[in-house]
C-alpha cells in the first residue's frame, strides 16, 4: 500500500479544485472528487495538506511522513491525471521520483542540429553560466529546476539561485518508505525557513529543493504518452478534459507492459506485435501463468518435433520454438498489463524458460541419433551447450549480487541557506573527475559509445541473450542439423562469456 498525500493549492493562484467540474467525464465529477476516487485503492483515507501558509503545510507534511510506514505519493489536489500515470509513477524502483516537464528550448538560430544538453545551448557553456532566479514560466510554474538525464541536479527558489534552470516539477512525487524519514526531517527544516520562499514557489518544488540539497537522488520522468495537468480555473478544467480524451490510455498501458532494454531479436521480431497477443489474452481472462503453460507446451512440442530427426518436423520444431519464445514474452506482458504479479508466476516463468531451452537440446540430440547420423557423441555437444549456458547464467546472477552489495554512491549535499548552487555543481564536477580515472574512464567511454545504434545493437547481440539463442536454435535446427545448432550455441556462447567476463572483471576493478 501507499500513503497518499493531497496538497491543497500551494502558493500561487488558489482556486479550490472542489469547485471545478470535469463536465466531459461521466458523472460530472469535480477535479478533487475524481482524484480521490483515483487514489482510493492505494489509500482510502488520503492525508490532505491545507493550502495557504507554507510553513504550516510543510509541518503537516512532515507529520504525515514521520508516521508513514509505506511509500508516499504526493500530488496536488487540483491535478487532472491518467490512472495509468499514477500507477507508473508508483511502480518506480527509485527512492524518489518527480514528474517533470522540460522548458522548450529557444532554438539556436545559426545551427540546425540539436546540441547536447550540457554543451553549448545557444549561449554560454553551462560551466560558465551564472546562477539565477528562474523567472520563466511553464504551465503556470516558475522554471527553477535543473534536471539531468536521470535525476534532478539542482532546484532554486525565489531567493535561491540555480544554474541554468531547464524544467518545472509538475506536481506528482513518489517517495519510498526508506526515504520518508529524510522527507520529514527536510520538511521541518524547510518550515523553519519558510520566509525565504516566494509566493510563486510551488510546494513540490520547495520539497525537492530540500531533498536535493540533502543529497537525496530524486529521479525524473516525463509524461510521455500520458496526460497530466494542474487546473486552477473552470476554463482550464474544460480544456484539460478535452485534451485528456485525445490520449489513448489503454495503448499507453499496453506499451508500458512491454519490457524495454531487450535484445535485437526480441525488439524487432517479437515485441513489435507480442503486446497485441498480450492484450487479447488479458481480455479473454487468461492469467499470466496460463500463458506460461502455453509456452511450456509449445517448447515441449518443439522438442518432440526435433526428436524425430526428419526435415519437415525439424522445420515445424523451429516454428514451434519461436512461438514458445513469443508466448514466453507475452506472459510477462500480460502480468504487467493486467497488473497480476505473483511470486509463483515469476518463478515459473524463469524456471521453465530454462527447462524449455534445455528440453529442446535433448530433443535435438535424440533426433540426431534417431535419424542415424552416427553414434551418441552428439550428446557431448549437448552437454557442452547445457553446461556453458548454465555457467553463463550463474556468472550473470553472481555478478548481479556483487553489484547490489556495493553501497550506493553518496551525492554531494548543500546547506539549505546557501544562496546559490555553485558549491553543489563544483562538488558534482569533482566527483565526475574522480570517477573518470583509469578503468572507470574507459568504462564510461564504452557506455557512451552506446548512443550509436550500430554499437548499441552489436553490444546487445554479442552477449547472446535469450531471444538470439531461441532464434539461433530455430533457424539452425530448421535449416541444418543438431550438430550445427550446438556448435552455434557453444561458439556464440563462448564469445559472449569472454566478452561479458572482460567487462565485469573491469567493473569489479573500477
Amino acid at each position, binding site marked *: 500500500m501507499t500513503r497518499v498525500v493531497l496538497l491543497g493549492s500551494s502558493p500561487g493562484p488558489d482556486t479550490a479544485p472542489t469547485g471545478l467540474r470535469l463536465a466531459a467525464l461521466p458523472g460530472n465529477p469535480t477535479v478533487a472528487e475524481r482524484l480521490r476516487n483515483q487514489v482510493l485503492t492505494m489509500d482510502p483515507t488520503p492525508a490532505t495538506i491545507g493550502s495557504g501558509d507554507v510553513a504550516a503545510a510543510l509541518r503537516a507534511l512532515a507529520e504525515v511522513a514521520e508516521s508513514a510506514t509505506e511509500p508516499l505519493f504526493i500530488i496536488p489536489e487540483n491535478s487532472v491525471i491518467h490512472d495509468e500515470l499514477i500507477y507508473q509513477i508508483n511502480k518506480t524502483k527509485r527512492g524518489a521520483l518527480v514528474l517533470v516537464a522540460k522548458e522548450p528550448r529557444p532554438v539556436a538560430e545559426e545551427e540546425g542540429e540539436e546540441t547536447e544538453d550540457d554543451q553549448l545551448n545557444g549561449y554560454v557553456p553551462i560551466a560558465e553560466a551564472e546562477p539565477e532566479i528562474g523567472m520563466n514560466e511553464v504551465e503556470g510554474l516558475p522554471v527553477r529546476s535543473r534536471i539531468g538525464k536521470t535525476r534532478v541536479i539542482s532546484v532554486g527558489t525565489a531567493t535561491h539561485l540555480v544554474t541554468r534552470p531547464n524544467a518545472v516539477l509538475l506536481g506528482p512525487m513518489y517517495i519510498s518508505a*526508506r526515504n520518508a524519514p529524510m522527507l520529514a526531517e527536510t520538511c521541518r527544516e524547510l518550515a523553519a525557513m519558510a520566509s525565504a520562499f516566494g509566493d510563486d514557489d510551488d510546494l513540490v518544488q520547495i520539497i525537492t529543493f530540500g531533498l536535493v540539497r540533502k543529497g537525496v537522488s530524486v529521479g525524473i520522468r516525463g509524461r510521455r504518452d500520458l496526460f497530466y495537468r494542474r487546473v486552477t480555473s473552470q476554463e482550464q478544467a474544460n480544456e484539460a478534459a478535452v485534451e485528456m480524451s485525445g490520449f489513448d490510455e489503454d495503448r499507453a498501458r499496453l506499451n508500458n507492459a512491454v519490457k524495454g532494454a531487450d535484445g535485437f531479436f526480441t525488439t524487432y521480431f517479437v515485441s513489435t506485435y507480442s503486446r497485441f497477443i498480450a492484450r487479447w489474452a488479458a481480455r479473454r481472462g487468461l492469467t499470466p501463468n496460463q500463458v506460461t503453460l502455453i509456452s511450456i507446451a509449445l517448447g515441449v512440442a518443439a522438442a518432440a518435433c526435433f526428436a524425430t530427426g526428419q526435415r519437415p518436423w525439424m522445420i515445424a520444431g523451429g516454428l514451434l520454438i519461436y512461438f514458445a519464445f513469443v508466448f514466453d514474452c507475452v506472459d510477462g506482458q500480460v502480468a504487467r498489463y493486467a497488473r497480476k504479479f505473483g*511470486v509463483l508466476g515469476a518463478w515459473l516463468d524463469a524456471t521453465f524458460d530454462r527447462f524449455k531451452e534445455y528440453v529442446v537440446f535433448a530433443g535435438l540430440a535424440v533426433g540426431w541419433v534417431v535419424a542415424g547420423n552416427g553414434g551418441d557423441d552428439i550428446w*557431448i555437444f549437448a*552437454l557442452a551447450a547445457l553446461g556453458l549456458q*548454465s555457467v553463463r547464467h550463474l556468472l550473470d546472477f553472481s555478478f548481479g549480487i556483487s*553489484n547490489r552489495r556495493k553501497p550506493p554512491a553518496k551525492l554531494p549535499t548543500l546547506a539549505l541557506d546557501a544562496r546559490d548552487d555553485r558549491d553543489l555543481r563544483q562538488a558534482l564536477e569533482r566527483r565526475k573527475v574522480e570517477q573518470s580515472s583509469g578503468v572507470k574512464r574507459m568504462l564510461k567511454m564504452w557506455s557512451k559509445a552506446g548512443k550509436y545504434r550500430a554499437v548499441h545493437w552489436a553490444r546487445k547481440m554479442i552477449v547472446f541473450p535469450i531471444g538470439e539463442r531461441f532464434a539461433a536454435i530455430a533457424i539452425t535446427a530448421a535449416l541444418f542439423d543438431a550438430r550445427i545448432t550446438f556448435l552455434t550455441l557453444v561458439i556464440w556462447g563462448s564469445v559472449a562469456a569472454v566478452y561479458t567476463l572482460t567487462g565485469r572483471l573491469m567493473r*569489479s576493478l573500477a
Partner: protein
Amino acid sequence: MITQPQAAATPTPDPDEERRRIQTARLLAYRDDGPLVHVLSGRLGKGLPPVPATLAALLAVIAVTVTGLVQPGFTMLLPSLIVLLLVLPTAPRDHLGRFDWLTPPLLRAAEFLAMIAVGLAAGAPKWLLFVLVYVVGYHTYDTVYRTRQSIWPPAWVFYAGLGWELRLLIIGAGAAFGLVTPVLAVLTAYLFVLFAVESVTSWVRLDKASAQAAADAEQDLEQSPEDALEQAAGEAEKA
C-alpha cells in the same frame, strides 16, 4: 550452510549493511555447499582465497582430462579429489572480496566438468549425464529465482541435495569401482525426485500474498537499476 538470513539483532539495521548481508548469503547459497563442507568448514582455520583456489581446481580438472589421466580404476577419483582438495578449504572465507562473485560460477563449472569427464571416461550413458547436469543446474536456478524474491529454500534441501562435494565423491567412487551407470542413475533419480517434490510442496504451502508483500518490501532495500547504472557507468542511458 545456507539458511535464511536471520533478522539482525538491532531493531533498525543500517539498510546498506542489511543489503550486503542478504546478498552475501545469496552468493554463498549459489555455491551449493553440502553437509561435508558444513562439517569441515569450522575446522579448516582461515581457509584459502576462493577465486584462485576454485580457478586452480577448474584448470586442474581440464588438465587431467585432456592428458588422459582419468582411466578406469582409481584414477577415476582424481577429478573429484582435485576439486574437493582445492575448493573445500575456501568454505570458511566470507566471500566479501571484489572478485569473489566469480566463485559460484567457477565452482559450478568445475563440478560440471568433473562430472562429465568422469562419466565419459567411465563409459556412462551420455544422455544420463545430460539429465544429471540439468537436475543439478535446476537446483542452482531454483535457488537464484527463489532468493531473488526473498523466498529461501529450506536449509535441509541443501543438505539432502548432498552439495557439490558429496555428489562429486559419489560419482568418482562409483566410476572407480566400475559401477558408474547404476550410481549415476540412482543419484540422478534421487536428486530429481528430491528437488521436484520439494519445489512443488514449497510452492503449494507458501502463503503467496505475504511472500509477495515481503518481496516488495525488500525491493526497497535494493538499489534501483538506474542508480546502479549511474554508478557503474557515470550516467544512465535515459530518463
